[in-house]
């Protein structure tokens, strides 16, 4: 069973390769195959998750660890992969095309989506720095392609946005590559477990520089502060469901990569301070920009910048408190931001155009308000508990400055989110614009997210236990090293 987890990466790749060819013969098959593959991967992941064998190390090609590439499968990576696949299934592009030329193009889009899912799964599992880089680049390229797809020819901005994103992302990759080179210079290895044994070599200015390079490199997708200027552009230009997927799920995988780098390459306070500072800057700049936004999509994109800043702040807290808080904020944001972008699917334009919509579409505006309340952190919704854990961790480290900024930006967040609510339920005597209702499947997905948030309130103790297990696994570097490096030598 263990080895089959790799199918979650391989099968989407296989289908993606074949899909354009299949699509020429049968459009129906091309549309049906990807969801089937996704469901199949979900089943595999869920089985492995339930089998209690995790955490384990998977040596690809049975090559012994530091030489070969290792997939390290633990609860957090399984959960990440599961959310990647489940969210992909729910946010799957569903529009069907009549013209054959359009069908060919849309098949390519399915194929890119599958590549995105495969690379995201790879990012979740991989235990090798350069392998992560490869998957990260695959993710980036697939993203560029997906952004550029739009049947609305008036939307020419998508190319400019994709190009600007590509420049930032590729420059980030150069930086990350440089960081990898520095790490390799110092240690001669790229396997995380092996790096963890070599940490003495890395605890020097070069190691910190390498970490900084990796941080800005992998931080591009994670919407880290100085490399996040692509966020509002891309999310405005791309389809809203794709934006929701990128902001909600994909950015979290980049965060996971950075966390791995932090834990295995440079687990020292300097790196944590760097992440704290950049996270705070991202939080401030995101919330402040969102406050002045007149456009719904841009507003929630900036809010996502801010939330990712919050995630970085959380992970910068040393020790278990930080990991738990970070995971809590991360998973909460995953759900909330996806729901917000689903709402933006139809309401993505100017906020002032939304006046009175709330009376027409009570379900979606109710979902908006609920999700906004959770994002703000109204107790007892999950957002509050994630914020509570975060602030507790910060107070434990006496980062009072960070606490102050987080709380102040919460007030700003309330202001702009409820400005939208005011427009939705506006009582001005203006005609309400006849905006189409959301597709029933989007409404269903958003409602499911709301249900998930409510269930999370009831299941808080269970979630807390799971978070503790995950953080234990993440922090227990010694057994990680044993699993990756030693077990195979004995076992095989």
């Amino acid at each position, binding site marked *: 069973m263990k*080895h*089959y987890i*790799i199918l979650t990466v*391989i099968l989407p*790749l*296989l289908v*993606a*390769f*074949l899909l*354009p*060819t299949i699509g*020429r013969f049968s459009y129906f098959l091309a549309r049906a195959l990807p969801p089937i593959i996704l469901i199949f991967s979900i089943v595999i992941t869920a089985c492995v998750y339930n089998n209690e064998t995790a955490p384990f190390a998977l040596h*690809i*090609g*049975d*090559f012994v660890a*530091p*030489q*070969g*590439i290792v997939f390290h499968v633990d609860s957090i990576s399984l959960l990440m992969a599961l959310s990647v696949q489940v969210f992909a299934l729910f946010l799957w592009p569903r529009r069907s095309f009549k013209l054959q*030329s359009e069908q060919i*193009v849309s098949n*390519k*889009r399915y*194929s*890119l989506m599958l*590549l995105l899912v*495969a*690379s995201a799964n*790879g990012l979740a599992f991989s235990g090798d720095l*350069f*392998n992560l880089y*490869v*998957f990260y*680049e*695959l993710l980036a*390229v*697939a993203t560029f*392609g*997906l952004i*550029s*797809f739009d049947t609305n*020819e008036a939307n020419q901005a998508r*190319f400019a946005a*994709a190009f600007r994103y590509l420049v930032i992302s590729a420059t980030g990759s150069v930086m990350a590559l440089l960081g990898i080179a520095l790490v*390799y*210079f*110092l*240690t*001669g*290895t*790229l*396997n995380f477990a*092996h790096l963890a044994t*070599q940490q003495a*070599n890395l605890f*020097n*200015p*070069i190691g910190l*520089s390498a970490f900084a390079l990796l941080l800005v490199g992998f931080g591009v997708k994670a919407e880290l502060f100085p490399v996040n200027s692509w966020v509002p552009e891309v999310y405005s230009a791309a389809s809203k469901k794709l934006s929701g997927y990128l902001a909600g799920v994909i950015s979290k995988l980049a965060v996971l990569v950075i966390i791995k780098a932090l834990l295995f390459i440079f687990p020292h306070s300097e790196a944590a301070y760097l992440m704290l500072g950049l996270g705070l800057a991202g939080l401030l700049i995101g919330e402040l920009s969102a406050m002045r936004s007149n456009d719904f999509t841009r507003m929630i994109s900036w809010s996502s910048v801010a939330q990712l800043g919050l995630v970085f702040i959380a992970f910068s807290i040393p020790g278990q408190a930080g990991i738990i808080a970070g995971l809590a904020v991360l998973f909460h944001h995953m759900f909330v931001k996806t729901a917000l972008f689903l709402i933006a699917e139809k309401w993505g334009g100017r906020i002032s155009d939304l006046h009175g919509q709330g009376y027409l579409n009570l379900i979606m505006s109710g979902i908006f308000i609920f999700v906004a309340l959770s994002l703000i952190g109204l107790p007892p919704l999950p957002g509050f508990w994630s914020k509570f854990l975060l602030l507790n961790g910060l107070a434990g480290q006496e980062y009072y400055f960070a606490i102050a900024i987080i709380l102040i930006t919460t007030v700003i967040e309330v202001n702009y989110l409820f400005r939208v609510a005011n427009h939705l339920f506006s009582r001005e005597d203006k005609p309400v614009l006849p905006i189409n209702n959301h597709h029933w499947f989007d409404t269903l997905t958003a409602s499911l997210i709301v249900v998930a948030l409510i269930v999370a309130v009831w299941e808080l103790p269970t979630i807390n236990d799971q978070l503790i297990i995950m953080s234990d696994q993440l922090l227990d570097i010694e057994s990680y090293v044993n699993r990756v490096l030693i077990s195979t030598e004995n076992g095989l």
Partner: protein
Amino acid sequence: MYQFASFVFLLGFLFLISVITGFLPLGEPPMLVGQVIQNNAASETGASNFVTSVVLGYRGIDTLGELSILFAAATAGSLVLSGLKQKSIESGDAGFLVKSASELFFPLLIVVGLYIVLHGHLTPGGGFQGGVILAAAFFLPLLAKPSKSINSLALGLIEGLSGAAFIIIGLIALFNEGAFLKPFFENGELGSLISSGTLPLLYIAVGLKVGAELASLLNLLNQEEVNDS
């Protein structure tokens, strides 16, 4: 102001990275992984070219990722350019020299490309390098006759099938040997053409894939260039 700041930080970057590289142990790499590979690769993979054994054996999944990136780039590129209208082609053919050179070199390039692909596990070279040469071979006629274009259906077929072949070889290993991309077949005699298990097969797939991807990318840009004029 912006340019001044850029210069200052560039200079700082230059200085600091020079200082950092000054500390680096050039010429005496730690060789933690490298040494082990040098000791074991010949017996474990049977390839005399250790780079090949790393590319296809130890780090095979990297190569798969890389193929996927090329595929993704080609797909994304065609998505980007898909909305443009195809104009009629006006520009004429290239001159006599280019035309005859392309006809002359086409078979040569094919042969060289295939040779490099097939000997990837023995000599410097391999699927990537050979694939590029193969792509160049198919691109030369395009240079000579811009009005022509490569059959994209066939390209797509090669793209898909060669990529799938790579994965399927890996999957066979998964189901037979229990690990994805684990080399199977006999390692054979070190240094001979038919040796080192599945690596040559993988390299053929890689070569075809790279060649097809690059050809389709060039094809894409070529069509565009023609339309642009």
